[in-house]
Every structure is written in structure tokens, then in C-alpha cells.
């Protein structure tokens, strides 16, 4: 079809015109052209924009290192006690991305067992981030639950 398709933005009652083509496939609706970007995610409130994580991983760092769940991550490299690299499926445009970490010494509980434990992650290259876990006095340690989310 060559006429414009009216699209209602997901976050409100404003409308804008999309001029691309629509293909009603057997199971999927696909489009070509450029859809107008939503001003906010439908779950967000307020006027500040929302940005999703571009990569994330939850992996076990004690015993047999295992990846529990992830997106946009091809692997985790176990380098040594408390030292890892998280490798991205799709690289970032630059190394100005932000790494947000979490950890838990054990899978159950938390609280006081995590006192004096710290996870630090920084960009290494556009395609991987360092991820290290420490105890007091900058001693590298293994912890069970390691969490990393990356934003850009």
C-alpha cells in the first residue's frame, strides 16, 4: 500500500503519520520505513525518557561458573578468582556505556552476608566489560550471584 498509515503513540493520545509499507505476513506484522519514536515506554510515568538495558547477565561465579540468564551476551570469561569479562553479542558504538552491578554471596538470603562485598564493572572495549568482585582490603573473591546491566 502506498498511503500513509496512522499510528497512535503508545504513551498517549497523540498521533503521527507513518508513510512506509505494511506486510501482513502469516504470523507477523512487519513494516518498512521509520516509525515515530515513542516519547516514553508505556510503563513509565512522568516526562523523563526511559532507556532499556542494552545488555545484561546473571551468572554464578562460585563452583562451576554458569550463566543463569542473559541478553546480548555471548559469553562470560572466567579469568581468575573474582575476575571476569562479559562479552557482548552486539558491540557498542564506543566505550562510554555504563555498567551497573549487583551481587549476592549466596543464592538465598543476602543481607549481612553481603557486607563488605563489592562488584565493580567497567568498559574494557566496545565488545566486552570487566567485572570483578571484592571483599575487604581489595581482595578478589568468588561470589555466587553476579549481576551486570549495561546502558548506553
Amino acid at each position, binding site marked *: 500500500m502506498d498511503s500513509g498509515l496512522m499510528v497512535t503513540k503508545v504513551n498517549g493520545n497523540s498521533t503521527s503519520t507513518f508513510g512506509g509499507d505494511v506486510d501482513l505476513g502469516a504470523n507477523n506484522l512487519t513494516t518498512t520505513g521509520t516509525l515515530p519514536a515513542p516519547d516514553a515506554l508505556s510503563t513509565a510515568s512522568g516526562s523523563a525518557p526511559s532507556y532499556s538495558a542494552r545488555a545484561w*547477565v546473571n551468572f554464578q561465579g562460585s563452583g*562451576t561458573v554458569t550463566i543463569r540468564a542473559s541478553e546480548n551476551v555471548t559469553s562470560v570469561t572466567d579469568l581468575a578468582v573474582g575476575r571476569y569479562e562479559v562479552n557482548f553479542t552486539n558491540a557498542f558504538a564506543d566505550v562510554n556505556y555504563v555498567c551497573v552491578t549487583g551481587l549476592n554471596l549466596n543464592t538465598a538470603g543476602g543481607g549481612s552476608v553481603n557486607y563488605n562485598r563489592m562488584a565493580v564493572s567497567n568498559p574494557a572495549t566496545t565488545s566486552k566489560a570487566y567485572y570483578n568482585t571484592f571483599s575487604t582490603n581489595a581482595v578478589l573473591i568468588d561470589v555466587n550471584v553476579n549481576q551486570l546491566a549495561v546502558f548506553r
Partner: protein
Amino acid sequence: MDKRIVYTQDDGTVAVIVPTVSVELALKDVPTGKEYHIVDVSEVPSDRTFRDAWTWE
């Protein structure tokens, strides 16, 4: 994922790559020029007491 990719780091210790989806996709994460081996997860010790002393023979 029951496979791992191992290679020897510049300091002589072993790095273990844990793939999320497939070994084939994770091969890009081996540093350029490094010899690597694909092993079963059962070949990697689960006791990490001496993790920093692991070597590959």
C-alpha cells in the same frame, strides 16, 4: 551449555569462556592469536580453591 572454551593467558594461567548460547558464537571471544580448546564442562574443576593456579596441559 555443557561446553567451555579454554585458553592460556599471558601470565600462564587458564581462562575459561562460558558460552551463553553456543560455543560457535563464543569463539569470537577468544583473544586473537590464542590457541584454544573446546572441552566438556566436566573437565573444568568445580573446586576453585586453587583457581589462580590452573594451567592447561
